[in-house]
């Protein structure tokens, strides 16, 4: 246990020294903040830069506050995944490549502890960054549009946090099996985009897929339908545990 805590502390110290604990929340806040702002000022933005002919009349339907929050999440589905992948991808591969992993592997520490400590540290930083951004966009949505019941926001936030955690676990697993960071990034981005496209095409067949979590998070905001939510959560958690063990095994087999 002490070994695990030591490893987790080292991960946090590394994230502090590399300023990841600062830039990751800021990036998330910027990504989420733009959504309520652009939606609110859409008319002005189009008037200023759109080159519309003189005298044209614009009629923008004002989106509901729930729709704004849902659009924040859909924004994160593309850009957010990319940012998480970039922030986490090198966590094991770099240490193995440059040889610093050697000093951990020749100590009495299990590979599960190594992968677990990275998951805990990276996962918590990513989830907290997401929560910071999400709450900020909630604040602006309430100011610019109307209030949403906090319970709905919290529910969608928790569901989406689990999705973020799942992305982190996937990236850490690929970091354990692949050497090149470019490959890790491409594999993960392809994986998540293909899975979410497939999820919308074969919605019944893939209704428990982890990428459906983001749809569930949006649904809790808009129509509160929870069809398939429990299944998705269960499948995601089981997959995360499997990937954790598989990652540990990969660290064991591909040591140097």
């Amino acid at each position, binding site marked *: 246990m*002490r*070994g695990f805590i*030591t*490893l987790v502390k*080292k991960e946090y*110290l*590394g994230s502090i*020294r*590399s300023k990841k604990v600062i830039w990751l929340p800021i990036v998330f806040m910027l990504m989420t903040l733009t959504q309520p702002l652009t939606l609110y000022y859409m008319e002005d933005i189009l008037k200023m830069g759109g080159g519309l002919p003189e005298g044209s009349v614009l009629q923008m339907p004002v989106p509901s506050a729930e729709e704004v929050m849902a659009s924040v999440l859909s924004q994160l589905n593309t850009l957010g995944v990319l940012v998480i992948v970039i922030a986490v991808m090198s966590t094991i591969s770099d240490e193995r490549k*440059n*040889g*610093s992993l*050697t*000093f*951990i*592997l*020749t*100590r*009495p*520490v299990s590979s599960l502890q190594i992968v677990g400590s990275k998951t805990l540290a990276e996962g918590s930083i990513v989830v907290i960054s997401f929560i910071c951004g999400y709450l900020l966009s909630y604040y602006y949505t309430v100011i610019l549009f109307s209030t949403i019941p906090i319970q709905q926001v919290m529910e969608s936030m928790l569901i989406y946090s689990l999705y973020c955690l799942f992305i982190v676990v996937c990236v850490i697993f690929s970091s354990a099996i692949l050497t090149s960071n470019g490959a890790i990034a491409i594999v993960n981005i392809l994986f998540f985009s293909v899975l979410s496209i497939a999820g919308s095409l074969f919605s019944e067949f893939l209704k428990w897929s982890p990428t459906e979590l983001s749809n569930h998070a949006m649904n809790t905001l808009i129509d509160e339908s929870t069809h398939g939510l429990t299944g998705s959560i269960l499948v995601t958690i089981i997959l995360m545990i499997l990937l954790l063990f598989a990652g540990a095994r990969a660290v*064991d*087999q591909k*040591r*140097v």
Partner: protein
Amino acid sequence: MSFYVRNLSKIFNDQVVVNDVSFELEHGRCVALIGPNGAGKTTLLKMLTGLIAYKQGEISFQKAKEWKQDIGFLPQVPFFYEWMTPGEFLTFVGRLSKMDEDLLSRKIEEVLTATGLSEVRNKKIQGFSGGMKQRLGLAQAILHEPALLFLDEPVSALDPVGRREVMTILSNLKTKTTILYSTHVLHDAEEISDDILLMKNGEIISQGTLEQLLSQASDVFEVESASSLPEMNNFTINLIRPNKAEVSFKSIEEKKQFLQWCVDQDINLVSFQERKQTLETLFMEAVKP
């Protein structure tokens, strides 16, 4: 405690890197692993430290589950978390090795002083030179007082002063720790090693105590005469100077014939002696294709 390796082999992509290696490390011995580049020394050390899995053979130290508690390892090119300081790094690895906090802080002082890094203990590793990293690597390897120390070329990146310091550290450790280290600096190996393992093409081709190996009867003799030596077509000879040569004999008979021949030719012999063996001559003979 002794450490056995039996019939250990490793094949990478159909290439035999370590081939049927067997040896034994006795407690408190300092063993030098020497051999040309590509002989498999690094692979062997990584197998012994558990960094490379193996399928064939046996390493008997592994009978204990937590055997990593008892080993220290210095890789050939140590690379650290550049954002850490030596103090932080040693605390980190010491805790991973389950060291007691009091003991750990005392040992950190000790190894930092021993490796001459106490002044930079709070500086980031980022700015360190190769030699400083090598010392820090040694510091982390000896921090938890392991029973077995594996060092992969501990002196290759160091200047003569640093090399001397590391050799001193190693000689001091010899009393408590069993050391196995690979090196190209044969002179150093001759100075502090008790035993030698000579490796070539993945095989241990020669092993024994240093004295044993160096006292192995050489079949090469140096012969020197007062005047120039005449042609000696009957013998395998390597002329060094007109009046000095190395002659190798296949048998004692041949040696007798040679001396008889000298008498017959009326050569004024000044000296005739077995060539003195050094690790270097041994190494050169062994790695000759």
